[in-house]
Each structure stands twice: as structure tokens, then as C-alpha cells.
């Protein structure tokens, strides 16, 4: 009679995992018992993992939204002629250097549409000075730079600014922040600070609705400045206005 050759543990596990054949085809009782023992070990490990090793995961809504926003900014891979064109542009810009900007006067509406907190006019008007000095965390600031494609942001060049200022009910949210340059444009963060102060004063004096102030600043703060200060270009004193600290 031909002697029976038992399956090795590795072979039994492959059968169990569906990586080789079907375990139903196995007729040897000894092999089946051994397989049951291996299966018991698998079950014990799964329980160990669930009890001891797995961590509770935070909600995925925020990360999923962030990824969607970042994907919108990503450009699909280009063909070689695209890089040839890019090379030409870079070469020309080196030959004729002009003013280069990495961030503009207005935020990218797709990344920074503006976000507000649940707050009433009365609350806005009694906000403390600390609210005025509120700055986003470094992690949040880095997230903003990343979303805007700014690598290694230079200290004192940008202010990671709230589009809708906290003093006007703006939220501490990445959708309400953008890297505003200090000096690249006449429409810089110092000028915007002056507008924020004016709008808050108007809201608190009852001359303006809070939601309207928020809306105007979110849609186009430059246009809001021109409208409220009745000027096409920033007032000279505002260009020197220093309220917020730069990002460092």
C-alpha cells in the first residue's frame, strides 16, 4: 500500500487562504486537524489585532475633501513637448527676469472659498483683542502652502491670512486661509488688514450686515476695498499698516 504524504503547514495555510486548490479536497484527518489548529491561530491573531493593535480611525470626511481639493490642482502627466515648452519659458524668463509671484492678490476660489463660524453680530463686536491676533497653527499654515504649491515658504514674505478675518466670524479652516504676499503687490496683506478693520467697524456701528461684509470680502476683497475706501489704489498709509505678524 502506498504511504500517505501529509501536507506541510505552509501548504495547509495556502489551502486555507485560497491560494492553492480547495481545502474541501483534503481527505486526511490528520491534515484536517492540523488545518483546524492553524485556523484557530488565525482567529486568535485577528482578535489580538482588533483588541490590541488596531486604533480607532478618525472620520475620513476631512482627509477625503482635502484630497479632492488637491487632486483638482494636480495636472495630469504631460508629454515631452510640454516640458520642452516649459524649458523655453524658463530660459526666456531667466534672460528677461520680470516680477515673479507665487501667490496673488486674490486667493484661488477653488482652494479658499472662505468659511465662517456660527457667530452673531453682537458676538463679533465684543470679540477680544486676542481674536484679532489669532494666527493659524503652523501645521495648518503648511497645509495652505502645500495646497498653493509653495515649497519652502520664505519667512517674512507671506502672511497666511484668513480670507474672512476671525474678527468678522471667519473660521479656522483651511478653506478660509491663503498665503498672502507682503510685498509682491500693492494689494498686500497690510492693505487687507485695513479693510477688515473698516468692515468690522461698519458692522458694529450697524451700517452693514455681517453676512454682507463676509460675502464681500470672500468674493473679492480688492473690489470691497476699492468700494469702501472709494479709491482705485490702496491708500498710502494702509500700505504701511502693520497689524499681523508674518508667517515664520
Amino acid at each position, binding site marked *: 500500500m502506498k504511504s500517505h504524504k501529509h501536507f*506541510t*503547514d*505552509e501548504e*495547509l*495555510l*495556502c489551502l486555507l*487562504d485560497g*491560494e492553492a486548490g480547495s481545502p474541501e479536497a483534503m481527505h486526511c484527518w490528520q491534515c484536517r486537524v492540523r488545518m483546524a*489548529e*492553524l485556523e*484557530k*491561530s*488565525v482567529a*486568535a*491573531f*485577528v*482578535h*489580538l*489585532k482588533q*483588541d*490590541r*493593535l*488596531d*486604533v480607532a*480611525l*478618525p472620520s*475620513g470626511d476631512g*482627509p*477625503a475633501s*482635502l*484630497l*479632492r481639493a*488637491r*487632486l*483638482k490642482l*494636480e495636472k*495630469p*502627466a504631460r508629454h515631452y513637448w510640454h516640458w520642452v515648452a516649459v524649458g523655453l519659458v524658463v530660459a526666456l524668463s531667466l534672460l528677461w527676469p520680470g516680477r515673479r509671484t507665487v501667490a496673488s492678490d486674490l486667493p484661488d*476660489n*477653488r482652494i479658499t*472659498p*472662505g*468659511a*465662517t*463660524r*456660527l*457667530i*452673531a*453680530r*453682537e458676538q463679533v463686536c465684543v470679540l477680544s483683542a486676542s481674536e484679532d491676533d489669532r494666527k493659524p497653527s503652523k*501645521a495648518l499654515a503648511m497645509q495652505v502652502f502645500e495646497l498653493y504649491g509653495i515649497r519652502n515658504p520664505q519667512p517674512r514674505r507671506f502672511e497666511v491670512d484668513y480670507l474672512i478675518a476671525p474678527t468678522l*466670524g471667519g473660521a479656522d*479652516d483651511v478653506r478660509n486661509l491663503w498665503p498672502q504676499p507682503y510685498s509682491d503687490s500693492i494689494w498686500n496683506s497690510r492693505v487687507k488688514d485695513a479693510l477688515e478693520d473698516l468692515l468690522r467697524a461698519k458692522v458694529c456701528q450697524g451700517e452693514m*450686515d*455681517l*453676512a454682507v461684509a*463676509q*460675502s464681500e470680502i*470672500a*468674493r473679492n476683497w480688492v473690489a470691497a476695498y476699492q468700494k469702501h475706501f472709494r479709491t482705485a489704489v490702496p491708500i498710502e498709509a494702509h500700505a504701511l499698516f502693520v497689524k499681523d505678524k508674518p508667517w515664520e
Partner: protein
Amino acid sequence: MSAIRSQVVDWVWPQTAEKASPVAEEVSQLFEEFRGPVLRYMVSLGLPMQDAEDILQEVFLSLFHHLSKGKPRDNLRGWVFRVGHNLALKRRQSLKPTDPLPELTLTDPGLNPEEETAARREQARMLKIFAALPERDRCCVLLRAEGLRYREIAATLNLSLGTVSGTLARVLIRLQVEPR
């Protein structure tokens, strides 16, 4: 009162409507599908949750470029785990050693105190063995526990199929439940 209520807002101002590309849509869907298992795996490698979330974003942005270039799309789960694994190990090198695993808490209401003590002892024993395993072996088992097939584990850890099956069998024998 109504005047105050009319001032209350809590919303995000509307964005410029722009439809995501089909590849971006696909990557977003894969993110929803794989986020949990990949995140758990990266945390089990010793990364803080925030770092794991950061890396996960990088992984899926890389996936977007991978798919945009028309590169192979078979075994995408293995691809995601492999890139996540490599980036996680790289990030871990720059971090301080993590705290040891928390104390065991068993809350199975079906166990009486004696059984609970025995179960706790058994898990402590297994945990000790598991912690003493080489990292590659631990990764193999954790990936299998996350539902990866052998070829996916092999792709993630850059191993042969034979090494994967041999490792899994060896680890399970070491973890084998002791008869009570």
C-alpha cells in the same frame, strides 16, 4: 431676536464649479475604499495618526500621476500598500521612538472572570511573541490580516510568493494557541 438670528451663518462660500477629471474621481473612490486598511497598517508600523494621514495624501497623489500616465492598473491595492509602506518607513526614520503598546483591555461581556483572565493571559503571550518577530514577518501578517492576497503582500514588501507563504506559516505556528 430675529435680527440676531438673521446674522447667524455657518457655511462655506460657494466654490467655482469645476468638475474633477475621471482619473481624479477614480482616485477619490479608491481613497474611500483603501483609507482604513492602509492607515491602520501605517499606524501599526509606529507612525502617529497625523503623519499616517499626511503620507496617505501623498500616496494617493502619486496614484493619480501613476494612473494619469497610463501605467499598469492591475493590483492597485498592492501598489497603494507598497508606496504607503515605503513612505511610512521613511517618515518613521525621522521620528522619535513611539510609546509602547497600551495595556490590554478586554471587554467581551460573554466571558466570566476566569475566562477573561485566561484570555488576557493568552493575548499577552501572543503579543509578546508578535512584538519579538522581525519587522518583515510582522508586516506580512498584518497585511494578510488587512485582507491582502499573497501576491499583494509580495508586491508590497518586495518578496517572493514562496517567502510570503513560508513566513505566514512560520508566524502562525509561533503564535499557535496553547491548549487550555
